C-alpha cells in the first residue's frame, strides 16, 4: 500500500446535506439561519466586498424565506440557498463590477480574518487576491467545493450545470490559482484584470 499523504487531520469532510428525519421535522425558516454564516463567508469571497456580500446574503435569505411553504419539502436546503445566492450574484454581477472601486479586495478581506502569523497573512492575502482574479464561473466552483465542502453533484445543482462542467471549471480554476499564487504572478495578473 503506497504512502497516503492526503488523509491529514485538517482535511474537512464535506457536510452531509441529505435530508434526515430530524431536519424534516423542523421548519425551513429555522434551518435557514444555520446557513447564514456559510452564505456570508462564501458571498464575501465571491463578491469581494463585505457590504455587497451582506446585501447579497440578505436578499437571498429574504427570498428563500418568503418562498418557503409548509407544503414544500426542501430536501437540500443548503444547495437551495447557495443556488439562490448564485442566481442573485449572476444577476447583479455586472452592476457590482461597475460600482467596484480601487480598494484592494484582498487587503479588505484579509483584515477581516482573525490575526494570523505574518507569513500566513501574506499567503492568505495572495490566495484571496488570486481568487478575485479568477473568472467568476471558476471562482464559484472553487469556493463551493473547497471552501464550503459541497460535493461535485451539489455544486452542479447549485450552478445549474452538468457535473462535467463543474469538474472542468474546477480544474481550470485550481490550475489558474496555482499559477497565480506562484511568486510574482498575482501582481502581474491583477494588472491584466
Amino acid at each position, binding site marked *: 500500500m503506497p504512502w497516503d499523504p492526503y488523509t491529514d487531520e485538517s482535511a474537512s469532510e464535506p457536510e452531509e446535506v441529505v435530508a434526515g428525519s430530524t431536519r424534516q421535522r423542523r421548519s425551513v425558516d429555522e434551518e435557514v439561519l444555520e446557513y447564514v454564516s456559510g452564505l456570508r*463567508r462564501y458571498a464575501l469571497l465571491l463578491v469581494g466586498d463585505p457590504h455587497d456580500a451582506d446585501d447579497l446574503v440578505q436578499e437571498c435569505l429574504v427570498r428563500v424565506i418568503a418562498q418557503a411553504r409548509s407544503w414544500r419539502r426542501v430536501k437540500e436546503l443548503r444547495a437551495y440557498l447557495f443556488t439562490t445566492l448564485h442566481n442573485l450574484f449572476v444577476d447583479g454581477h455586472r452592476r457590482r463590477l461597475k460600482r467596484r472601486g480601487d480598494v484592494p479586495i484582498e487587503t479588505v478581506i484579509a483584515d477581516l480574518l482573525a490575526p494570523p502569523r505574518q507569513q500566513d497573512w501574506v499567503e492568505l492575502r495572495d490566495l484571496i487576491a488570486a481568487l478575485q482574479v479568477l473568472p467568476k464561473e471558476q471562482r464559484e466552483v472553487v469556493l463551493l467545493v473547497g471552501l464550503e465542502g459541497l460535493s461535485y453533484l451539489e455544486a452542479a445543482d447549485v450552478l445549474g450545470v452538468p457535473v462535467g462542467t463543474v469538474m472542468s471549471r474546477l480544474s481550470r480554476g485550481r490550475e489558474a490559482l496555482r499559477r497565480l499564487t506562484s511568486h510574482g504572478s498575482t501582481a502581474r495578473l491583477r494588472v491584466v484584470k
Partner: protein
Amino acid sequence: MNQGGARTARSTVDESELHALVDGRLPGERRAAVLAHLLIDGGDRERVEAWRRQLAGLARIRAGLDRYAEGFAPELQKALADRILRVRRRRLALRGVAGLVAASLLLLAGFGAVEAWRGQPEIRTAIVGEPELAVPEFPFGGSLARTATVRPEGDRERSLAWLASHLRDQTLELPDLRGLGLVPAGGQVLDRGSAPAVRLAWVDSQGRMVDLYVGVVSSDAEQAFTMVGESLVSLHWRRGRLVFALVGPAESPELLQVVQAVMSGMGRGGQPVPTGKVGMPPVEPRPIRTAVEPDVTAGPSPAPGAPLPEKATAVSEDAPAAPVVPAKLEADKAKAL
C-alpha cells in the same frame, strides 16, 4: 497525465480522480491506484500538492472568517428573525381560517345547504404578502392592483343590481353582516375586466377592511385570486356562474362567519333567501334579479361602531369621508389592491 480528463495508455488516472483525491471524494478502490500514479508522475504530484495548499488556505480563510461570518451584522439576524415570525404568524392564521372554512363547508353540507347550490363551492385560500409571488390575473378586472384604480360607479345595492342583471338563474342578496360587527363601507363596479364583477366593502370594529368580490363567469374555467399585501388573506369560492373572493385580515376569526353569511344569501338558485339572523333585526329580503336604480347619492361612511347608514357609501380612495382604517392597513390595502 493528460489535462483533458481522458486516460492515456501511460496512465490510467484522469484529471477528475486527482481532484477527487484532493477533495477526499475518491472511492477507496481507486485511491491506491491514484497514489501510485503520483509516486511516478512528478508533474501531477506537484499539481496535486499545489491544490492541497489551496485547500489548506481556504480552510484557514474559512476558520479566520468564522468570527466575521458569525459575529457580523446582528441587525441582519434580527431582521431575519422578525421576518420569520411574521411569515409564521400569517401561516398559522391562514391555517386557522382555512380549517374553519373547511369545517364550515362540511357543516353546511350536513344540513343540506349544498343541495341548493348550483355547483360545489370551492374554497381556496392564499397567503397574501409574499413578495416573490407572481400576481395572477384577477378574473374580472385584470389584476387586483388595477382594480384599485377603478372609480366607484354606485353604492353597494346599485353595484349588486348591476351584477344581477347579468344573471338569469341565480339570485343575489346583499349580505347583512351587521351581526358580525361589520359596517358597510361601500361598493363599486369593476367593469374593466372580461366579466362583470363588483366589490363590496365592510369595515370591522377595529377599522379593518373586509372586501367581497363577486363576479359572473361564463365558463367553468378555474379562477384564482392572489393579492399582494401584508396580513391579509383571501378566500375564494364558486357557486354556479358566480365567483366570490373575500379579502380581510388574516387574524380575523369572523371571516368564517362572513363566508357563511355570504353563502347563505348570495347566489342561490331561484328562491329568495332571508337575510335576517338570530339576534339581529329583521331585514327585508331583497332578491335582485333585475337591474334596479337606487339612489346613488354617496353619503359619508360610518365610523366603526356607528349606526348603520341607510345607504352605503362608495369605495373610493378620494372619498370625502373614508372609513377609519389604521395607517398600516391602509398601506397594506394599497399594496393589496
